[in-house]
């Protein structure tokens, strides 16, 4: 009974959390459209033009450091050539002399604003008539800004890269052996669904974090409800929420975008459910193992884009070799995508089953880790 009570009221909270809802439902809907449609063929030339950009970071906080790392990353350096400037004037004169096409300026309160929960902005200054470069730079910057406000950056990077690669790339490569070829839209519907489900692990880890850190969590803890009941209630609420979001995404893309979700929607949804179990169990383990709630957030928002990228979520990568190939096998996204693709495009049923078994096995592993870690945690506090 108490499990259901905790679950019910936690669910109410989650449903009313509009920001997370938007991120989990509206964002992928937009991204699937963007990646699968609007951007493909947008740039016919496969030649990537490097854009010269000036960069001024006056931020006193930590968050902009991530932006610097981000700019130095391989993907970005393929697109942008960064010149560091020390003052705004210096950047401006570079623009006026047309030695750079844009100035990215982070002002001194950027981190502070984000930490305070205010909307923080990176300022952009362009040379006149930079019709071509403007959207790319804006896109990259906005991508990062979104991540700082919890939405991940690499998706957008993926977006610009895909833009250069064009839609044909996807359609030429079947994602499953012997099966049908997905459309770009169909491909991204699957990978973005998987990515969002992985982000869903944050509901669980955050729920557990709030039990540990929030005053309400302590209040629940001193109530007659047993700690396993509270834990289970909160976890189940996350599970239901993320599953509902996944189902919503499947139906929306099926009926609005006309995405093919396979010969048997029931099986597809069952797979979604297994994936939600997996991502929730990951969230559970992360939330239990890592003491600080904020750290769990950072870990998940950092790791999920990597797992997505390596599984070919942004740009199809096929089966990678060597170390990357091993990493790919660790990525839950890879197995999730495999299961779905093999079902939807009627590929190899053995591969599909293998992927499902891997997911179930990992879920059990995560659950076991959680139980062990919880015992330790409970003994520590009370």
């Amino acid at each position, binding site marked *: 009974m108490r499990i259901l009570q905790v679950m019910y009221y936690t669910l109410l909270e989650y449903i009313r959390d509009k920001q997370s809802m938007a991120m989990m439902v509206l964002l992928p809907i937009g991204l699937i459209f963007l990646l699968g449609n609007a951007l493909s063929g947008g740039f016919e030339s496969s030649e990537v033009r490097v854009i010269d950009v000036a960069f001024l970071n006056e931020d006193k906080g930590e968050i902009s450091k991530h932006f610097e790392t981000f700019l130095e990353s391989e993907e970005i350096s393929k697109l942008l050539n960064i010149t560091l400037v020390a003052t705004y004037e210096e950047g401006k004169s570079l623009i006026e002399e047309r030695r750079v096409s844009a100035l990215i300026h982070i002002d001194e309160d950027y981190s502070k604003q984000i930490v305070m929960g205010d909307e923080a902005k990176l300022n952009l200054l362009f040379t006149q008539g930079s019709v071509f470069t403007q959207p790319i730079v804006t896109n990259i910057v906005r991508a990062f800004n979104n991540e700082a406000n919890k939405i991940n950056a690499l998706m957008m990077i993926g977006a610009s890269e895909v833009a250069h690669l064009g839609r044909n790339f996807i359609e030429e490569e079947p994602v499953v052996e012997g099966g049908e070829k997905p459309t770009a839209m169909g491909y991204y519907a699957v990978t973005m669904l998987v990515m969002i489900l992985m982000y869903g692990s944050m509901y669980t880890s955050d729920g557990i974090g709030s039990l540990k850190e929030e005053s309400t969590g302590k*209040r629940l803890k001193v109530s*007659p409800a047993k700690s396993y009941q509270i834990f289970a209630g909160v976890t189940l609420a996350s599970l239901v929420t993320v599953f509902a979001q996944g189902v919503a995404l499947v139906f929306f893309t099926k009926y609005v975008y006309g995405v093919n979700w396979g010969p048997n929607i029931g099986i597809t949804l069952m797979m979604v459910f297994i994936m939600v179990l997996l991502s929730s169990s990951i969230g559970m383990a992360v939330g239990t193992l890592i003491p600080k709630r904020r750290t769990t957030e950072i870990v998940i928002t950092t790791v999920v884009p990597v797992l997505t990228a390596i599984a070919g979520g942004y740009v199809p990568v096929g089966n990678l070799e060597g170390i990357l190939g091993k990493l790919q096998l660790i990525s839950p996204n890879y197995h999730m995508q495999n299961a779905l693709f093999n079902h939807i495009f009627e590929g190899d049923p053995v591969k599909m089953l293998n992927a499902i078994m891997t997911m179930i096995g990992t879920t059990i592993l995560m659950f076991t880790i959680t139980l062990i870690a919880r015992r330790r945690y409970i003994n520590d506090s009370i």
Partner: protein
Amino acid sequence: MWAPEQKKKGAKKMILSMKDVVKKYDQLVAVDNVSLEVKEGEIFGLLGPNGAGKTTIINMIIGLTKINSGEVKIFGLDMKKNEKEIKKNIGIVPQEIAVFEDLTAEENVTYFGKLYGVKRKIIKKEVEEALNFVGLWDKRKIFPKKFSGGMKRRLNIACGIVHKPKLIIMDEPTVGIDAQSRNLILESVKELNKKGATVIYTSHYMEEVEAICSDIVIMDHGRIMARGSREELKALIKAEDRVVIAVEEVKNSITKKIEKLSSVIDCTEKNNEITVVSEKNSGKLGKIIDLISNEGIKIMSVEVDKPTLEKVFLTLTGRSLRD
């Protein structure tokens, strides 16, 4: 559930007993060998400045913090063995406001009511009663994020009392709110106590504890500095009684006559106010009044100057409570 029947029997049941309880955070001894007892029907005041160890004591009572040594018994039971039984009968109003921002006032109170085992049939009624009690029934559909600080504090209380607990623990429930809300809360504490609940009330406001608590422990740096009933504590510093009598007109060298009474130490007059200082508990007030009236002097008012707990604290620790 408040078990008022036991009250009538006379023998007061022990609600809480702590024996030689110690809590350390690394080097810091947050609670240093504290022993205390709370009996049924009391409003027990735990008074002390910031960092005295009040919240730590409460957390140890309700099982949120492990104790290093010592023993805690609630309703005569051990928390480890009778967790559910004990928890069901405690209502906690934490210092830090603990309500869900995304649940309405009513949902918050219902949630905690259900967790504390209020039966489905009566939950609506009990929630209404609790919200009415703190004056928030009209605002039941509103989310706490839209509440003022005082309203949040009151909701915080409603969540802790909806299940009509035997023991209500309130940790500084009036921090950071205006005088009106504060009085409302103090009144409601008395009201809850009248209905049969035992209350443990922490504060660093002297006036509050003085106004509502029957028994008081004063602590500082994790140690108990003084304990006793309100009167006993005041008596600690009260070496003499002081009475101020306002009269219509001073005449017949009345002050000299009063001064001659045994156990009167001093008698002075200023602006038709006679101040009499006498030995502690000498019970001379009646005699003094008679004397004045017999001289045909009209008495306008009599005021007994009460020492406050503030003074007690000052005497005990050598510093003022809120520094």
